């Protein structure tokens, strides 16, 4: 079915590389348009989170040059990132997508956010008109598989999210979180989650600053915290012991001079910066300052890796589910390649049958309803018997790697004409709106 996938993730590329390949949400529709205009690409989806940048495409012949797309789109020297790229096609691409959506490829395996992020990418691509039937079918299946993994394994139940890793680190610095103040810079989902964890472990209060002040107010109200105008960020930040940043700013918003200012005002009481933004919000230089600790998303991964072992078992079970589902979907896709031929064959024979009946009818004269039925049954029986062997042969050929020869033979023997391409598209089993629940 010619699925191709290319990308980088947290395992193959450090954050410095990933942030260069970051595509802001606002530019995604444009990127998608350029993707589907790229040679050989029919449909496309771009998944861009802080841990990965991936391009998924349904291509005409399975050999579209997606590297060329990346070279064209990102004005980044290819040598800096190309060694970090992975590429999958067909079955491997399906498998990768299923694993990503089911959170098996996540930095923290089992974390729940990735499913939402894939759904968002899907919605964006649909709105941009980059997704039609094939990717639609694939993505819908991926969501269903993710759901299955989540319900049939414990992978999500004990999920040590980035947020709880952050809590653990905070405890390594502060001991108890009682009376500690938390500052959210940027009102994203992830920082909200981290804040909830910190509060649950005793943190005293929350400040929220966001470029869109209204969102800060909404989030602050949720935690009975205090919303602060973004302009006052630097004047108020020293009140916080723990700062969680997740803004979409293109450059670091906390730099050395800010750190020095905060430390002076705080009489050198330590500060913990959790930077979950890509590109990063906190200048890594700040980590060198006495009393300031900076952890970015990559560091959190390292800290989380100790938990991975505990969940290997659940992850293994999840992998098995993925394997089964990939097989099933792949078989399904393969049969799709013979579906047009089968339909043509059925059409062809049905037409012959109808034509022969109408010719014979003139000679037979008037028939009783019973006789009508008998003729219908007789002709149907003959046609079905004739069709049976070709259809089963086609279906079993579909599961092999080279179904085209058989398709070709059947078409020639029965003199079948090409059917319209659109009719080969799979019917969507359920709408995406349903699967979101």
């Amino acid at each position, binding site marked *: 079915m010619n699925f191709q996938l290319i990308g980088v993730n947290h395992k193959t590329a450090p954050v410095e590389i990933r942030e260069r390949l970051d595509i802001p949400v606002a530019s995604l529709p444009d990127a998608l348009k350029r993707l589907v205009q790229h040679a050989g690409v029919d449909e496309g989806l771009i998944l861009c989170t802080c841990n990965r940048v991936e391009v998924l495409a349904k291509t005409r012949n399975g050999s579209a040059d997606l590297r060329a797309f990346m070279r064209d789109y990102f004005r980044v020297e290819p040598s800096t990132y190309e060694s970090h790229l992975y590429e999958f096609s067909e079955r491997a691409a399906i498998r990768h997508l299923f694993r990503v959506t089911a959170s098996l490829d996540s930095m923290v395996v089992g974390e729940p956010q990735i499913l939402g992020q894939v759904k968002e990418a899907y919605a964006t691509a649909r709105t941009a008109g980059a997704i039609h039937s094939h990717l639609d079918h694939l993505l819908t299946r991926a969501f269903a598989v993710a759901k299955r993994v989540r319900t049939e394994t414990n992978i999500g139940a004990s999920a040590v999210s980035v947020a709880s890793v952050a809590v653990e*680190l905070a405890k390594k610095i502060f*001991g*108890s979180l009682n009376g500690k103040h938390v500052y959210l810079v940027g009102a994203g989902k992830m920082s909200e989650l981290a804040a909830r964890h910190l509060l649950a472990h005793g943190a005293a209060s929350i400040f929220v600053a966001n470029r869109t002040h209204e969102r800060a107010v909404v989030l602050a109200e949720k935690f009975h915290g205090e919303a602060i105008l973004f302009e006052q960020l630097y004047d108020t930040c020293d009140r916080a012991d723990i700062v969680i940043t997740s803004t979409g700013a293109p450059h670091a918003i906390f730099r050395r001079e800010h750190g020095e200012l905060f430390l002076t005002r705080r*009489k*050198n009481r*330590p500060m913990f910066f959790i930077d979950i933004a890509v590109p990063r919000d906190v200048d890594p230089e700040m*980590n060198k300052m*006495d009393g300031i*600790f900076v952890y970015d998303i990559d560091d959190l991964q390292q800290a989380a890796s100790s938990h991975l072992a505990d969940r290997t078992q659940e992850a293994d079970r999840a992998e098995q589910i993925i394997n089964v589902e990939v097989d099933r979907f792949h078989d399904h896709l393969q049969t799709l390649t013979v579906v047009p031929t089968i339909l043509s064959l059925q059409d062809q024979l049905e037409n012959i049958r109808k034509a022969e009946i109408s010719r014979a009818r003139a000679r037979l004269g008037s028939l009783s309803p019973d006789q009508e039925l008998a003729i219908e049954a007789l002709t149907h029986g003959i046609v079905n018997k004739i069709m049976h062997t070709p259809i089963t042969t086609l279906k079993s050929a579909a599961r092999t790697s080279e179904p085209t020869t058989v398709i070709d033979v059947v078409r020639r023997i029965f003199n079948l004409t090409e059917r319209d391409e659109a009719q080969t598209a799979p019917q969507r089993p359920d709408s995406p709106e349903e699967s979101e629940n």
Partner: protein
Amino acid sequence: MPILWLRVALGFYALGLLSALLALTRQSGLLRIALPAMSVGMVFNFVSLAEAVIPLGPVALTSVHNAESLLALLVMAAFMIVYFIYGTTSPGLVIFPLVFVLTFAAATRQQPFLFTSPVLGGWLIAHIALIFAGYAALFLSFTASVLYLIQERRLKSKKLGGVMSRLPALQQIDEIGYRSLLFGFPFMTLGLIAGMVVAQATFGHLDFLDPKILLSLLMWAVYMVMLFTRWNAGWRGRRAAYLATGAFVAALIAWSANYFSAIHKVVQS
């Protein structure tokens, strides 16, 4: 007899140190042996000291080996106080080896009394006990500094696994260091005053140019500056750790003055 009890104590301290070090390399329950062993060692250490002091009076503490034994006991006591307040055994990393070395030195060689004063037995014992309590606190503070620097490096370099993962939280280590500094300061101050009273009574005057007195005053000054900067400028963390290390080195130098000062050598000369 005291020397026998001290050697028994040494045996237990050795067992404690060994199991603590082994617990570091293999993540086993060996720490459960270390604490009881060290506690039993403390009891024998105390018995040994008591037996030495009871027949002779406080002047017994002025022999080098008894002094070392007393310092070992006080340092262990400081460790135990921290353990009961904070529930951490991490300072043992630095403290157990020191206690072992002190006890080992005290249990293997017997030395003559360094000092005797015809007068003021009460002042003398006060001087020794207070100064040593101050030393113990200062050493604990130094230990905390070492642990702080280790933990800080771990947090900064983001390598959090391994044998050091039982270290207490950074702020807790900082607090242990600061509190033991605060705690040690009055002891050190009063101990120095008591020492001056004894010296004055013995020699009739105070020779401020004597290296022992000079260095002791210098150490006290460093100590005070350290507390002051911490209070006032909020020096903490890495800089405070360096300062505590500095104060500890000053204390070591003041201690080493015993070997070339006239005051503590009065008997031998």
